[in-house]
Structure formats: structure tokens, C-alpha cells
């Protein structure tokens, strides 16, 4: 029974966004080598799911790592641990970044022609199919919408969003422009034509790309890299990677028509992709978790993440420096 020895070890339970699983898997091995009495257990889910596991399903975790740091305040600060007045968390650590790329394979149509300047024209060719995750479900999904909207001003072509997105949905995904700000409204029912392929997450898009069902697919840089896809980097102005462009990104926001069951506000504003983590207040091994975080942002883990193109921000930023565990205080700074 392989689980037998694990039971005697101390378990470090991590719930993580699936996009971090690859570097985390490597880090796990290294960390366990350093701490032989520790069994690191990593569960991968969508970012919102990660938090829900703790907040809604009552799982106990030592560390949560999500692909959008802003989820931590929205979902955890207000929620209270049962039979107590304490919140699930009172701080986050913004510790990693990523960017959006356009992935393809060598059988993708016009793959040889594609460049950072013509990609939107190629994607809009009638025989080209491409995919991105469902914006109602996956953060990458709405980020793709923002990227494509940002492309309009960057390339100076106001038809890009229509050609790539709006026209291929019925009912269409509409945009409204108020001054500098563009607002994308996602309708209650997303119904794409067979040119645009939505899936609930990027994992479900990958088989489509690999089997040539679609030619292109928006992915996070780290995933494209880890899974050995060919990909094309997008300009900083639209790839949601650059902290300097934060202001520019925020000119696009996404609204959701459907709010019936909403438990959290679903509206999104363009922002750089930042990963966040926190140690829940009801963690069983908070100290060990802090130790692991230190390992990631300062120790060996940093290289592992960087090599996986999941670059670590150092020092990390937090919204509540005083709330941090003592171990982490030296490696974090208050948000600017």
C-alpha cells in the first residue's frame, strides 16, 4: 500500500490553479527531498474552484495558489469559517506572472505566415479555426477577450474584435465604448459558430489543437512552453503580462449579462496576469505552508518556476504585510 508511509509523514496540502501544476510538481519533489518527513499533496483545479474547495466544500488546505490574485480578497475575506467569526484569509501574496500567447502546431493553417503583426488577420480567415476558454468560467477566457479588444487600438483596426469574436457568436458579444473605456458584454448564452471553439478550460482546448480540429488557441505562455507547443508572443500592449501596461489594460472591461446565480461579482477589468497565494486561516500546517512559499519565491522553487516560464515576482507583493506569517514577511512588500 503506497499510501502507508505517507500517513506517518506530515501532509502539506496545496490547492492550486491547474496552470501551476507543472512547476509545482517539480517543486514538490525538490521540497520533499529537503524535508523528508513532509508529503506535499497538490490538488489542481480552476482558480475559483480552488477557493471554493475551502470556502464552500469545507476542505482544509494549507496553501491556496490561484491564477488571479484578486479572487482571494473577493472570495475569502468576507467568508467566515464555520462556527467562528474569523475570515478564511486576510492577506494575499502576489507572487507570479504570466502572459497570453497564441499557440499552434505545425499542421495549423498559415502557421508559416503568422507574425505578431498579422495574426488577427489570419485568425479571421474563414478557413481558420481557433479557440479560447469560456470567458464565463476560465480567467484565461475573459483575458482573451480583453486581449482581442486591446488589439483594436494597438493595431489601429476597429474591426478586429468584430471579425474575431462578435460576428461569430449568436447572440453576439457586444462592445460599448465610453470615451477611452471599452466594455465587452458577454451574453447569457454563449453560442459560437464553428470557427471559434470554446471549452471550459484550456486543457479541453489542447486536444482540439493537437488533433488539428482548431488551428490556433490562446494559452498562457507557461502552458504553451511546458507542453511544447509552437507559439507566438503577443506585444506587451495586449498580452496582459506587463505591469507597466496595467493602466492601459484597464481600459477594457468585461461584463456578464447573466447574474442570476452569481455569488460573487463577475465583472472583470483588464489587468496584468498575477498569480496569488494565501494560507487559509484554518490551515493545519500553516508554518510548513509558509516554509513552502518561501521555497517557491526565494528558494530553489524560484528557478523551477522561472524555467517553466512561470516567472516569480520577487519580492512578492501583499495587501496586508502585517498579516503575513512571520516566515514570509522578509520576502514580501506592501502593494504599491
Amino acid at each position, binding site marked *: 500500500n503506497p499510501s502507508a508511509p505517507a500517513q506517518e509523514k506530515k501532509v502539506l496540502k496545496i490547492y492550486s490553479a491547474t496552470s501551476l501544476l507543472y512547476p509545482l510538481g517539480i517543486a514538490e519533489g525538490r521540497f520533499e527531498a529537503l524535508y523528508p518527513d513532509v508529503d506535499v499533496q497538490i490538488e489542481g483545479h480552476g482558480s475559483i*474552484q480552488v477557493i471554493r474547495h475551502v470556502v464552500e466544500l469545507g476542505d482544509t488546505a494549507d496553501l491556496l495558489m490561484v491564477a488571479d490574485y484578486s479572487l482571494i480578497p473577493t472570495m475569502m475575506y468576507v467568508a467566515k469559517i464555520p462556527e467562528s467569526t474569523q475570515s478564511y484569509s486576510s492577506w494575499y501574496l502576489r507572487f507570479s506572472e504570466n502572459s497570453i500567447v497564441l499557440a499552434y502546431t505545425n499542421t495549423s493553417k498559415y502557421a508559416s505566415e503568422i507574425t505578431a503583426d498579422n495574426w488577427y488577420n489570419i485568425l479571421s480567415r474563414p478557413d481558420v479555426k481557433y479557440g479560447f476558454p469560456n470567458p464565463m468560467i*476560465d480567467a484565461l477566457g475573459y483575458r482573451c477577450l480583453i486581449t482581442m479588444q486591446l488589439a483594436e487600438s494597438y493595431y489601429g483596426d476597429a474591426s478586429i474584435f468584430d471579425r474575431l469574436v462578435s460576428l461569430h457568436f449568436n447572440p453576439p458579444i457586444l462592445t460599448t465604448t465610453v470615451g477611452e473605456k471599452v466594455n465587452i458584454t458577454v451574453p447569457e448564452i454563449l453560442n459560437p459558430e*464553428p470557427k471559434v471553439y470554446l471549452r*471550459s478550460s484550456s486543457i479541453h482546448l489542447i486536444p482540439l489543437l493537437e*488533433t488539428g480540429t482548431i488551428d490556433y488557441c490562446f494559452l498562457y505562455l507557461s502552458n504553451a512552453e511546458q507542453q511544447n507547443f509552437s507559439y507566438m508572443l503577443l506585444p506587451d500592449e495586449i498580452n496582459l503580462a506587463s505591469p507597466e501596461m496595467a493602466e492601459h489594460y484597464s481600459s477594457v472591461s468585461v461584463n456578464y449579462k447573466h447574474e442570476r*446565480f452569481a*455569488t460573487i461579482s463577475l465583472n472583470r477589468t483588464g489587468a496584468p496576469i498575477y498569480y496569488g497565494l494565501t494560507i487559509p486561516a484554518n490551515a493545519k500546517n500553516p508554518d510548513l505552508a509558509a516554509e513552502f512559499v518561501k521555497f517557491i519565491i526565494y528558494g530553489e522553487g524560484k528557478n523551477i518556476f522561472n524555467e517553466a516560464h512561470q516567472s516569480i515576482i520577487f519580492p512578492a507583493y501583499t495587501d496586508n504585510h502585517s498579516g503575513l506569517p512571520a516566515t514570509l514577511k522578509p520576502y514580501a512588500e506592501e502593494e504599491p
Partner: protein
Amino acid sequence: MLKKNHEGTWAAREANAEVFSDGATMSWLKIRSPFIIASSLLGLGIMLFLVLPIATTVIGASASIYDAITDPRTTSAIWMSFYGAFLSTLAVAATGIPLAYILCHYQFYGKSFVDALIDLPILIPHNAAGIAILTVLGPNSLFGGFLQNFGIVFVDTIYGIVAAMAFVSAPFLIRSAQEAFAAVPIAVEHAAKSLGADDLKTFMHITLPLASKGIFTGGLLSWARAISEFGAVAILAYYPKTAAVFLNDVFVSEGLGAALPINALLICISVVIILVFKRITMGGTRLNRER
């Protein structure tokens, strides 16, 4: 009160109901052997294990079930599930029943190997199954490409839903049909042939009706399995959304509270469908001891 209905010949079934209905009823514990009592308790155990989670879900969500009914996304997804599962079961029946018949009636080289392969689709993790189907039916695949010429596309169509559902659920119908065919007495098939029925007529008038109870049971399993499928369907055909896919979307984006009423609605409709289906199909079969 348990009433034993097999103390008596097969003929006794209907009769017994009568015997019991007006007879004095003895104490349940007194007339039952320890074996029957133990069996009942074990059976009750697993019944509770299966039903309690479902009941809790349904009851917990019952307050918001009306919201689910009035949400067109929910109803159309549930409809798509039932419709897809229905088509899938039909397709599986149309091909799987002949397969089961051949496997049950004929010997050929390598049969036991072929037979073992039938269970495989069940045990493959579902998204792996979805990927596997995509490799064979995707637009760039040999077969999928061929079908595309006839306008049959699998990705994001009802065909894809049906294909994914059929793949994961076919073995259940095939196995049930195989067992059911094996239980048809050869003497009865021979009698039909002696009365001038050829292979086809014997099959249609004798073998199939006699196996129908088992096949229907298998069809119901297959249908139910098809409804639950998420992994393979989500890869092959995220659209049109089935209940399982939609439920997952809602669960992921809006959380448990929003997802459970949909689930509860799905369960309630299914119970009704199963009850109706069982009532219809059981009327026709006599070989069954339960009447």
C-alpha cells in the same frame, strides 16, 4: 412488509399477490430466516448509501428548483442531455444488440479477446476517452474527414455528444444484451425455426422479445451513463451544452448553490422517466420474476 413472491411456481406470481393481499400478515421478523433479514439489512445499507447523498442534494436544492426550471439554459441543457442520451442509446442498441447476438451465438477466432475489449471504454478515464474519440472522429482524422464530406461533423455538434456518450455507455448495453441472449432457451428458438421462421424472424419474434427485459435494463443503464458523461463530451462537444457540461460550468463559475438546483431538477426528471420507462417495458415481458 416484505412479501416473498417466489414461493410458488412461476405461475404463482400473480396469484400470490392475491393470497397475500387479504391474508393475515404475520410478524415480519418471525417468518423470515436470519439470511433474509441479514440480506435485507445489507441491501438497506447500500440503498441508503446510494440514495442518501442524492436525497440530501435534492432536498437541499428543492427551494431553488423552480429557478432552475425557469432558466432556459438549464432546461435546454437538460433536454440536450436526455435527447443525446436517447439518440446514443438508440445508436448503441441498433449496433450493440446485433454485436451481443453474434458474440452470444457464434464462435470465431480470437473471440475471447474481442469480448474482453468491450469493457475497455468503461475503464478509460473520461477525458482520455474524449481525446481518443477525437483522434478517430476529428476533422483531420481519416474517418472523421471522410464523414465530413457528408456534412457529419463531430466537434461541437449533437453528433459529437452522441459519439462521446455512445463510447462510454455502449458496453453496458452490450453486456446486458449478451447475458439476456444467453438466457434464451435454445429449444424455444428451435421451435420457432421448426415453424418456418428464418434467422431474422426467429430473432425478431422470439429471441429479442425474450431478451427484451435484460436489454431494456441495459439500455437504461446505458442511457443513464450517457447522461452523466462530462469528460468526453466536454472535449468533443462543449456545445450544444448538455446538462453535465452546463452543470460543470455553473458549478465552476457560480458555485455549488447555483449548481445543485440544476442537478436536483435533472434527478427529478430522470426519476420520472425511469419510473415511466420501467412501467412500460415491464408490461411486455413475462420471464421476469418480479411481477
